[in-house]
Each structure stands twice: as C-alpha cells, then as structure tokens.
C-alpha cells in the first residue's frame, strides 16, 4: 500500500481484519454482493498513478506557472471579475480550518461562530445595498439573478421578465437557461447608448411584466438611472431587480434600496474573494422585508437560548428544499458560505471608511484613465454616461490586436466587446481598480498611442 493513500485511510491491515471480523464477513467483497455482478468493475480504474506529495506539488506548481496571473501583469480586465487588493486578515481569518472544514450549521449550538459570522454578513449586505434582508449566499451573481427572476414572477404572479442588454451577457445567458422551462418569458431591452433607456423601459413594461432587471454599474461600466427605472417598473406593478456585479461601487454609489430596488442580486467576488479563474464566487441576494418569506437560500436569525443568552440559528427553513421539497422557493442547498465569510472579514477590515476609500480610488483612477484615453487620437469613449471603474473605448484597431501588443509589455488589456456584442466589435471594456498605479495607467496610455 502506498503511503499517499494510507495517510488518508488510517486502518492498518490488522485493524481491517478486526473490522471484518466484527462485521462478520471474510472479505470486503462480501459487502458488495448486493451490486449485480455484471456491473461490478472487473478492472482497476484507468487513472494516472498515485503521486507522492513532493512529486504532486511539483506538478501542480508547474501547472500553476503555466498560467499568467494578475501578480505578473498590470490587469485592466474586469467584466464581472475584479482585481482588488485583499488585506492579509482575509485569508488568515476566513480560511481558518474551524470555518473551512465545518459543514452547514445544522447543529446550531456548536456552530455559533459560523452562524454569527453569517448573521453579520447579512447585516453588512443590507447596509451596502440599502435593503432590509440579505440571505446567506447564492452560487454566484449570474445564478442569483436567475433566481431573482422566478422570485419576482412568484411575487407578482406575472410571467415575463424584461432584462436590459446592459446586464452582463453571462448573467443574461444564465437567466435564459434558468427560465427556459419555467412559465417565464424573457424579453431583452436594448441599451442603445450604453445605458438602459428609461423611456424604452417605460414603453416595454406591460402588466404582464414581473420585473425589470438592470445592472448598475452596468456591463459597460455606466451607472443606470435607478430612480427613474424603479418608477417605470413600479408604475406598472412590476418589480425592479438590480444586479450589482461590482459591489465595491456601493462604497460610493447610492444603494439600490434607496432608489427603489425590490430585489438586489450581485456578485460578491470583489469583496475579498480571489479571482480563482471564475470561482468559487459569491452570489448575493437581498430584498425588502415584505418579501422575506420568498427569498431563496439560507437565512440566519438571532434568537436566545434557554438561559436567555443571545444565539443564532438557521431560520425560516420552511422556504427550503429539505423541508418544503417540491414546493421550496429554490433548490439551493450547499451555498457559498465561505465566500460570504471572506466578504465579511474583508468588509470588517476595510470598515466604514475603507470601503469609501477603495471605491473612491477606483472611481478616480478609472476617471483619470478614461479622460487620458479619450484624449488619444483615434480613440474615443463609446458612451457618455457617468461610470464607476469600467468604461468602453472605441478603438482604431481591433481590441484583440491591442491586447496582444499590450501583453508583450506586461499589461492585461480589457475585454473586446465584440465577443458578446457584434455591433460593438471595435469596442473595448477597460477596468481600473485601486490596484493600478498612475504609472501603470500612463504606460497603458503611452502604448495605446503607438497602437494605431
């Protein structure tokens, strides 16, 4: 037997024999006789050989080095995944094994740490979004938005959702997939000049519309006219769902709850979670008090024990699949609690001032980059609306070509929009976070000047 296997399977040969004897069988095969012989595997699985730790770590180091990560590039790429600074407290605290290797807090009395941390996370999400209730997490921003659609349909008893094309394309794809076999039709509301037109929205919303779904800052980085859009929706009895893909923006921008959002979904990756090539990320969902019993996923509530001590429990579980089964508000079970904990530690570390500080840095640096690039001959801003830390540039050469050239200078360029918007194939979505120094921005601009 290989140590690499034995170290995870403690039973020694002698112990295995003792167990067999206690169970009363001669060989372990006797325990598998209930499996029809014809489907019992007669051969070993065809897998790469077991690798001892040193060999395996060397292999994994080599794989990791075949990637070029954001420590090795100046990253101007965002589009739903953001390169923010993560304070040292975050991994040191959130990844403590007591949190990392715990299961869902079904035994509340011995999981008060997890439960309290999530209760605090819910509170922070409410503060950020301006909503009354936030849940303990969803899979990611896209799937949370998908769930919001059916939540809205249920709440309004209506069958159509209207989604702006300025919402992240992958969120829209997920929404379509999620609703494909539900009695919900998805209509897209074209965002013509980089923002969702309030007039178009008002015109498009009917009394069959369950919800208008927008993203703010939207996929083009522009800040939507939340208040007007909320009014447009509410006037027709529809709900406003606001997706927030870049929650750092909420350090500076008006919280959706303040301008009338009924449901806020979002992607919490930016709140201290690693880029991780796309996951695990953090699905956020928050809503108004009135809708609490329809919110999907877990909720932690504060209560007291028999001695009157404050304590925390999973609550309102009658919404959930393990109680309600086919009638549950969602099928979600395992969620992204650890990422929620990461967000909580991140927000606690930055705190009231730090969240404003980081948001302002993003906005100021992006604004500087935006103005400088706009001033370059051949380059122009695609849209006029105010932005946060992303903006769209029209380029004199194909954006993909620009990215290739920038890479040779250690710069990870923005997203060529043509991939998702054929009509914008000369457009380039740039992101500037607090991580980018003025020097890096100036380099970017200098190189752009040469690419014409």
């Amino acid at each position: 037997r290989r140590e690499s296997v034995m170290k995870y399977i403690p039973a020694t040969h002698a112990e295995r024999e003792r167990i067999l004897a206690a169970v009363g069988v001669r060989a372990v095969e006797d325990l598998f006789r209930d499996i029809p012989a014809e489907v019992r595997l007669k051969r070993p699985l065809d897998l790469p050989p077991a690798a001892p730790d040193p060999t395996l770590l060397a292999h994994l180091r080599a794989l990791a080095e075949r990637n070029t990560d954001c420590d090795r590039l100046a990253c101007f790429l965002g589009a739903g995944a953001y390169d923010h600074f993560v304070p040292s407290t975050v991994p040191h605290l959130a990844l403590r094994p007591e949190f990392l290797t715990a299961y869902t807090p079904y035994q509340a009395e011995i999981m008060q740490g997890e439960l309290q941390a999530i209760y605090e996370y819910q509170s922070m999400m409410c503060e950020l979004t301006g909503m009354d209730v936030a849940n303990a997490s969803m899979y990611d921003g896209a799937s949370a938005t998908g769930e919001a659609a059916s939540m809205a349909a249920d709440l309004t008893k209506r069958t159509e959702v209207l989604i702006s094309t300025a919402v992240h394309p992958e969120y829209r794809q997920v929404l379509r997939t999620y609703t494909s076999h539900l009695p919900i039709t998805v209509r897209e509301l074209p965002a013509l000049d980089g923002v969702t037109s309030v007039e178009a929205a008002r015109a498009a919303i009917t009394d069959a519309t369950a919800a208008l779904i927008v993203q703010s800052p939207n996929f083009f980085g522009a800040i939507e006219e939340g208040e007007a859009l909320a009014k447009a929706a509410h006037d027709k009895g529809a709900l406003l769902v606001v997706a927030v893909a870049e929650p750092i923006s909420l350090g500076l921008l008006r919280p959706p709850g303040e301008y009338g959002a009924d449901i806020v979904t979002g992607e919490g990756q930016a709140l201290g979670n690693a880029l991780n090539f796309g996951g695990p990320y953090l699905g956020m969902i928050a809503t108004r008090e009135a809708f609490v019993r329809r919110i999907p996923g877990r909720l932690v509530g504060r209560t007291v024990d028999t001695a009157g001590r404050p304590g925390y429990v999973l609550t309102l579980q009658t919404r959930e699949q393990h109680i309600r089964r086919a009638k549950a508000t969602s099928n979600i079970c395992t969620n992204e609690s650890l990422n929620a904990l990461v967000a909580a530690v991140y927000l606690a570390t930055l705190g009231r001032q730090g969240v404003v500080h980081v948001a302002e840095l993003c906005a100021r640096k992006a604004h500087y980059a935006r103005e400088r690039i706009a001033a370059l001959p051949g380059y122009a801003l695609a849209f006029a609306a105010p932005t946060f830390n992303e903006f769209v540039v029209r380029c004199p050469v194909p954006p993909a070509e620009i990215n290739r050239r920038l890479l040779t200078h250690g710069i990870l360029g923005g997203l060529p929009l043509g991939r998702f918007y054929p009509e914008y194939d000369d457009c380039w979505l740039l992101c500037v976070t607090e991580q980018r120094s003025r020097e890096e921005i100036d380099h970017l601009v200098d190189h752009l000047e040469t690419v014409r």
Partner: protein
Amino acid sequence: MSTPEAPTRTPSLRKRPVPVIFERGAPGRVGYSLPESDVPEAPLDAVVPAAHRRSRPAALPEVSELDVVRHYTALSHRNFSIDEGFYPLGSCTMKYNPKINEDAARQAGFARLHPYAPEDLAQGALELLWELEHAMAEITGMDRVTFQPAAGAHGELTSLLMISRYFEEKGERRGTIIVPDSAHGTNPASATFAGYKVVEVKSDRRGNIDLEALRAALNRDVAALMFTNPNTLGLFEEQILEVARAVHNVGAQLYLDGANFNAILGITRPGDQGFDVMHLNLHKTFTTPHGGGGPGAGAVGVRAHLVPFLPAPTVERDGQRFTLDHDRPKTIGKMRAFYGNFGNLVRAYTYIRTMGAAGLREASEMAVLNANYLLARLRDHFEVPYDRVCKHEFVLSGRWQRDRHHVTTRDMAKRLLDYGFHAPTIYFPLIVEEAIMIEPTETESLQTLDAFVETMVAIAHEAETDPEVVRTAPHEAPVTRLDEVTAARKPNLRWRPEE
C-alpha cells in the same frame, strides 16, 4: 468519568456571548491600509455626479486590525470542524480535507488568474480541467463531464435542463419527474425549478424502490427518474438493472444523484449501470472542504446522447493546446458565469492524483467497512429499520428511546455534542421515523469509531437512567438549545445601527 471541580463563581468563559462586530471598535477607528490617490486631483462631482453618490457611508464596523483578528478568531473557536472531531453526518461524507489540497489551490497561478484571461495565459488551468474531466469520466463511466455546477443541487438542475433539451430535440414534451420517497429534498425541488411535475414513488420493505410502484408511475410523460444509489438509507439498489430497464422502456432518462459516490469508487460505475446522466458532489467524495455550508463543486456526467446539451463552454484539447469551446449550438446555455468553482476543482484534482485508482477503491472499501462496523456495534442499542449490509452509511431509528423513555432522536443528537462529537444527520430520510443517519467515512480511525460507539451506547443508557440530562442537552456548548420558534415568528435577520 467525571472529575471533581473546585468551586467557581464565574460565568463559564466559553458561554460568554461574543458581541457582534458592529458593537466592537469605536467611531473613526480603522483596520485597513490603502494608498492615497496618485492621479491628478479631480473634484469628486466630476468623477461621479452627486446624484449618483450615496448620502452616508454604509454603517460597517469601525475596528482595528486586532479587533478583526480577535473577533473572527473567537468565532472560529465557537465552531465544530472536521479538524476538531468526528462528523458522522450521513449523506454529507465529512471526510478529511487534505492540507496539500489547500496549498495547491491557493497558488497565485490559480488563485490570481482572471477568468477572461486569454487562453494562452491559462493553459495550466485548462489542462487541469481537461485532465480532471477525463478522470471523472473514467470514474463514473460517463462520456463527458461538466464542472460548471456550483453544487449538487445545481448539478441536478443542470441535468434536468439537459434532459428537457434532449426531449425537445426529439420533438417530445415530457412533464413528469419521478423521485423515490427516500430522495433528498433537492431532487424534487430541482425538478420543480426545471418546470416539472414531481411524482413520488415509495420504497419497499428492503429499502429498495418499490418496482411495482415505479412501473405503475412510469409512462411517456415521464422525462426521468431521479435515483440515488446507494440510496439515502445507505443501501445499494439491488434491482438497479430492472429499474434502468423499466425507465428506458418508456423512453425516459435515468438520472443518478451521486452524492453517495463514496461507497462505490472503482467498484461499480453508473455509466455501466445504465444511468444516462448524473451529478457528483466534489465536496463530498472528493474532499473539497465544505466551508461551513459551501462553496462546493458539482460535476455532471453524461452519456454520449446528452453531450450536445452540456453547458458552454467545454474544455477541448488540440495537440498540446487547450481551448474553451463556446460554440455549442445545442447547449442548454450557462448555469452560472464563467466555468465552475475552479478553486475546488484544483482540490479535487489534487486528491485524485494523490489516491490513484487503487487508492480510490480502497477509500470506498474502508468507508463501507467502517459503516458496517458501526452498524454491527450499534445494532443492539438502537432500532435498525432496514437490516441489510449497508454501504458507506446506514440509518438507525430512535423509536425505542422515544417510545420507552420519551427521549427523542434530537435529544440524543444534542447530547452527543456534550461528548465532543458532531451529531449524525437526523430526521432524514423522511421514510424513517426518528431517523439517525450515520456516515463514518474511510478517514476516521478505529479508535474514533470505538469512542463514538461507546458514547452512543452511553447515551442510550442515559436515556433510560437519566433522561433529563439528555432532554436538556447540550450542556457543554457555548449556548443551550435555541428558541427556533421565536426566531421564525419574529425574524431578526440583521443588526441595525441606532439612528
């Protein structure tokens, strides 16, 4: 067992509540450090118009770095984790989460990689995904595997949507999903979420699905049977081949909920049993940590006829180069943004490479041996509703204790906490009254199993001789039983700043 204590007149330290973080700190205190802006000063109104800016900062904590460290360290000490003790949670496969997996996944080359980085910059990540898919296909006997689902239930939904597209392609419209009454709650919930009507089929006395009832329920409106095997009783469905035949006879698809895969690694493959599609919980069988509730990682394997419907993108290889194939005309679309819970996929890959084929088989053998060992040693003390050889887990009933001593399964579960064990899964599956569902996993030692048996027996004895101590348990935890009724009646779901 107990030792005399000197008198104390202090409240137990461990039972002192930890204040919420909002109540720590002081106005104006900070715990972060960021540079000042290095770009030319512009009036904030020029950067973001006032109308779009928030009027007051979010009421987040105002704490120092040490405040943060003390707070979350204290909270971590009020948890129960695999690293601290035995976690026999049935159906959850709480096996050891190797440290090397963490070292692998936390490398900057993985953790700091942007999902939209050009493929040339992500060859290592794509190669890992490709290798992992092929390993999982071999392990399950499926033709292809997607890792886009974030968890098991997400995998169920993914699978059902693929099944729907499959029937659409064939020009059929089917509206029913069958689930056994022993199924996990996510099965029917996923079916509903996918727009199906759910029909429940009961189990027979041996804990198998009732074949007659199944046959009766099957018809041309049935899109699929969602089947868990080994099922949630920890029993292998002896008539699996008949089940498959019956399902396929009406042209329906056979779906496997693979949450219990830890019983059959290298022993039998769903693909060989006739399953058309299945999900795996990598956070169970493949050691990725549960993180206090998530993130997990789902994997969905399909037979060839369902491959066209897989979520996009897939990972493809040409020669030495790995690419993302977004051009999948028949795809159901996307189940989430990007490609999946990559960080956990690195962990699962590391685990598979550590174990190899023989190691994975050995894991299942020991998981099953350990479960049968516990069953053998507990059978005289608790009712055994389905008395068969079990797989990786088994289900007892607390009926004896309830009927004879008015001590419920919940009481005994809470009492276990006093002895330093996590409780088993209780009151599930629903078809067993006072259910106690125990899964030891292969990573627990005989010493731990024996200590658990002795404690269970001691508690069964307490139920007779000292029921009050069981009914009022736990006594050792930071809190005693919590008022869940009030919690649900008057929900307090967030801290609020005083205005």
